[in-house]
């Protein structure tokens, strides 16, 4: 167990180290998300009345779209020097590679959210910075990185990778996006915990289901 965690940490730390060198993913993800937010503030005339109604949806739509681009980048990084194969040569089971890459992706999306959510709060004038929001974004990010890592690994050899990943990713994560949007709108409406909780439950169920499936099938994805 401790050895496995060390391996996951080594892979994740490597992603972070590379990120500090070339700043590919976090910058791309957060700038993209902010751009989507900005376009929406032009497309929809945001005011006190409709901000609570439209804000949560816009926030998570922008994070989902930006997340996909980030996932694409994060795997492109392993493709450049064929390094994914180097990881595959190591005497570790393939689900540890999955867990390590997922950990790295989780950190990237989280970092992007740390930048995006406060700016969203300012642009839409909404009080999202509550502890419930922490739970929501944590669970959503786990789900995004679990599914995203899986599909990013699957689409590595696909011709139109940049198109194929969102096509697979977005429909499958729809329930998670619904859960995130609904619980965020409960958060901005100051709802009580039980109301948020039913959506949190959905997110938890989704995360558990897909982490288990992904770890189960990731074994077979990498080999051709």
């Amino acid at each position, binding site marked *: 167990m401790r050895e496995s965690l060390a391996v996951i940490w080594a892979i994740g730390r490597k992603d972070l180290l590379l990120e500090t060198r070339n700043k590919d993913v976090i910058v791309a993800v957060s700038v993209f998300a902010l751009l989507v937010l900005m376009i929406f503030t032009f497309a929809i005339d945001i005011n006190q009345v409709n901000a609570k109604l439209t804000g949560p949806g816009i926030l998570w739509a922008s994070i989902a779209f930006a997340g996909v681009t980030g996932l694409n980048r994060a795997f492109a990084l392993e493709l450049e020097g064929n390094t994914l194969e180097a990881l595959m040569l190591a005497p570790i089971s393939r689900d540890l590679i999955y867990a390590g890459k997922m950990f790295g992706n989780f950190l990237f999306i989280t970092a992007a959210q740390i930048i995006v959510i406060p700016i969203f709060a300012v642009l839409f004038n909404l009080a999202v910075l509550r502890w419930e929001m922490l739970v929501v974004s944590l669970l959503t990010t786990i789900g995004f990185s679990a599914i995203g890592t899986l599909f990013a690994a*699957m689409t590595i050899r*696909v011709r139109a990778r940049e198109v*194929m990943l969102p096509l697979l990713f977005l*429909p*499958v994560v729809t*329930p998670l996006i*619904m859960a995130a949007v609904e619980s965020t709108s409960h958060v901005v409406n100051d709802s009580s915990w039980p109301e948020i909780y039913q*959506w949190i439950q959905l997110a938890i169920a989704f995360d558990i*289901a897909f982490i288990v499936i992904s770890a189960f099938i990731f074994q077979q994805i990498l080999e*051709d």
Partner: protein
Amino acid sequence: MTKVINLIVSPIALSAVLMGTTLWLIFVWVPTETNQGAVQRILYLHVPIAWGAMMGIIVVSAGSFLYLWKKNEIWDRLAVASAEVGVVFGGLALLTGMIWAKPVWAVWWTGEAKLTTTLILFFIYVAYLMFRAYFPPGTQRQRLAAMIAIIGAIDTPIIYFAANLWSQAHPPLITGPAADSESSLGTSLGVVLLASTVSFTLLFILLVKMRYEIRKSEDEIKHFKRNHQLDSAVLNNISQARGTS
């Protein structure tokens, strides 16, 4: 003579006769429903088509699962054939449902759970087919596609649950009178619906079978090409062995 008999008892002829009978039942035999009027006849088409789409998804995931388990190409062929036919049925189910909803619910689309689930599943299986088209050929493609199909199948109940919860939070624009009010038709509705479901199930099976056969021929050509190489290789091998020893 035998050719004529074969044609008469062939599944295609049977399907055509059944479909014709179904059309007769829908347009002539069954009385017009009083709540919705003639437009209710769409039901006899929409429900069996939606059923076909659902069947497609079940067959895709079952075939994919069996392929991963048994590694037999038969199951992969079955999965891809029924995915393609299922996407046709699914697209039609969405279209016919939308056209039906407009006069009855006064909108083309609402956020109702079944509709949302059908739409998302349609997208997942479109992505499945596109993935197969874009991925370089080989066993890895079949394996990964099978995994996507299974992920889609596992996602289905979660999507339905989420969509249901969502539509409770945002009451759908209109809850359908078609769904709620009892029909004035009684058993005749059931008879036509059953007949139509049987005909469309048969049509589904026929289409899947046809797609499957094409796929099988394609695979045979592929295998033949390999084996042809094998023959020349065997010859070379023999001559080489003579030359060196």
